[in-house]
């Protein structure tokens, strides 16, 4: 690749999300969107125009929002609950546990702008605990798409399952990382690169950074396998065990706390099956002020940080 090549085009996944949701809603009148005054931030303006009755905006009231979704599911609808991830998961956690998961309803919770997407708005608006929280709830599926194509696939998959799901829908712009012609397979890790020295296990916006890190490592003679884990629950344990066995070292990368999210899920699998040295990269504390990109660098969640973690493992 020429060093003068342009940076790849990047995308806000919310656009792909709402286009797919609208297409699904056209085909299936059971699909409704529920939101908390988040029509704009969830990119639902077009949906609202096209399906005015099927966008249920309950105002700034997240507990009610999730309860209302359960009632809609009881009445035969398929609710996509769209709200900023920190408030959806934090404010309505008990409703997610009881009304969604324990009831066993087919409800798709869409945590918009997760991680540190809200950058300088600060830790109140960051959703870095959601993967730990939701992963701890029985019967919840957790899926984090990495790019627009995967977002479309995941939304389509979530509409046709019959189980409660939590999706993270990113607003931080990401390049396409999914190879042409490859579609999302629920519960399966997607191997984007092969390598034998280390495996980089990444999710969401961190996948493109893992690929960048793999390029940097490759230039230095270290070959890294890269796995895109979109489905965090249930985890593709087979792919993780294979990676541990084949490469002997694992680095996990997520825009979240590592105390229960992807890193923890991978570590639990590794320690039970093939204990190998690991590094878990994530958000290690309440973030200082700054834009998302700055914060990724701050927490070592960029290519350079990933390379550092790999070097630690190799020495």
């Amino acid at each position, binding site marked *: 690749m020429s060093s003068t090549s342009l940076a790849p085009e990047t995308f806000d996944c919310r656009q792909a999300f709402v286009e797919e949701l609208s297409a699904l809603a056209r085909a299936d009148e059971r699909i409704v969107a529920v939101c908390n005054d988040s029509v704009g931030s969830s990119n639902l303006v077009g949906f609202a125009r096209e399906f005015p009755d099927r966008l249920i905006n*309950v105002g700034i009231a997240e507990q009610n929002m999730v309860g*209302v979704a359960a*009632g809609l599911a009881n009445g*035969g609808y398929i609710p996509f609950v769209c709200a900023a991830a920190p408030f959806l998961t934090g404010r309505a956690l*008990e409703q997610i546990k009881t009304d969604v998961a324990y009831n066993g309803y087919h409800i798709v919770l869409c945590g918009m702008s997760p991680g540190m997407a809200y950058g300088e708005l600060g830790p109140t608006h960051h959703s870095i605990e959601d993967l730990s929280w939701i992963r701890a709830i029985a019967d919840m599926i957790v899926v984090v798409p990495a790019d627009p194509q995967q977002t479309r696939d995941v939304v389509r998959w979530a509409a046709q399952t019959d189980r409660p799901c939590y999706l993270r829908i990113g607003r931080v712009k990401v390049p396409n990382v999914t190879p042409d012609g490859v579609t999302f397979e629920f519960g399966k890790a997607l191997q984007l690169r092969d390598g034998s020295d280390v495996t980089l296990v990444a999710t969401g916006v961190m996948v493109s950074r893992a690929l960048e890190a793999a390029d940097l490592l490759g230039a230095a003679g270290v070959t890294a396998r890269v796995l895109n884990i979109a489905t965090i629950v249930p985890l593709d344990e087979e792919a993780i065990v294979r990676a541990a066995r084949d490469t002997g070292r694992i680095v996990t990368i997520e825009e979240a706390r590592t105390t229960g999210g992807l890193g923890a899920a991978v570590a639990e699998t590794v320690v039970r099956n093939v204990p190998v040295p690991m590094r878990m990269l994530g958000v290690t504390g309440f973030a200082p002020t700054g834009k998302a990109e700055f914060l990724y660098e701050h927490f070592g969640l960029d290519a350079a940080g990933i390379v550092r973690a790999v070097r630690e493992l190799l020495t």
Partner: protein
Amino acid sequence: MAEPLRSDEQPAQRRLRLTEAARHIRRSILTTVGTAKLGHVGGDLSVTDILTTLFFGVLRYDAAFPKWPDRDRFILSKGHCSIALYSTLALAGFIPESLLPSFAAPLSPLNGHPNRRKVPGVESNTGPLGHGLPVGVGCAIAARLARAQWRTFVVLGDGELQEGSNWEAAMAAGHRHLSSLTAIVDRNRLQQGAKTEDTNALEPLADKWRSFGWDVVEIDGHDYDALYAATSARGSTKPRCVIANTHKGRGVSFMEDGVEWHHKVPSPAQIEAALAEIAR
């Protein structure tokens, strides 16, 4: 199984039928609490006449087809009074009466709080307070979207109204004029350890609901005619709140209005005395 709802029934006949059904349910409650040595007997007995009137006078359902799409939805938000609900569902034919003695036993479908995935007739899992009304609001929105005629009923405890989620839901229901939604407050004036008014006062309760856009009626929650009148007709353009003034432990003189009977377990002798009183 109790006789089904009859539209041509005279009030006196209905009263007689509901009285008998409630007597049966109270007997089941006391027997079940006695067997399990667990339960919330005070609240079970305060909500009994409300459940009786709804299930044997007002609600449209088919116990043999619990998921009938056009059924009325009933949600017991005060899920800790599950024994009253199970006893009612048994009399209505959703579950066999023979299941009641298994309440709270290992692996029984009859958990301390109701689980829709195990018990037909349960619409939504409750237990933590403040969950039923938001779900009921969602049900009422679903009925409106589907242009369906079914109605939604949510029974709330009064202490439960201290949970803010109820008022989020009340505001949404008022705003949306959800006239197919009826909330019934089991106003027994006691919460777990004290009077509601001494803990975190609810009054003026009717004014609160009215100010959130609801029609409100206040009735004697043990009067079948009043309960029937307040719940059988759907609201005009607003959701309806029925404040049902009740007595915790209703029907058992030594339990009535006693705060200690929130979840105290009666002794075998007390159960026997209570059953004798109910039979009268």
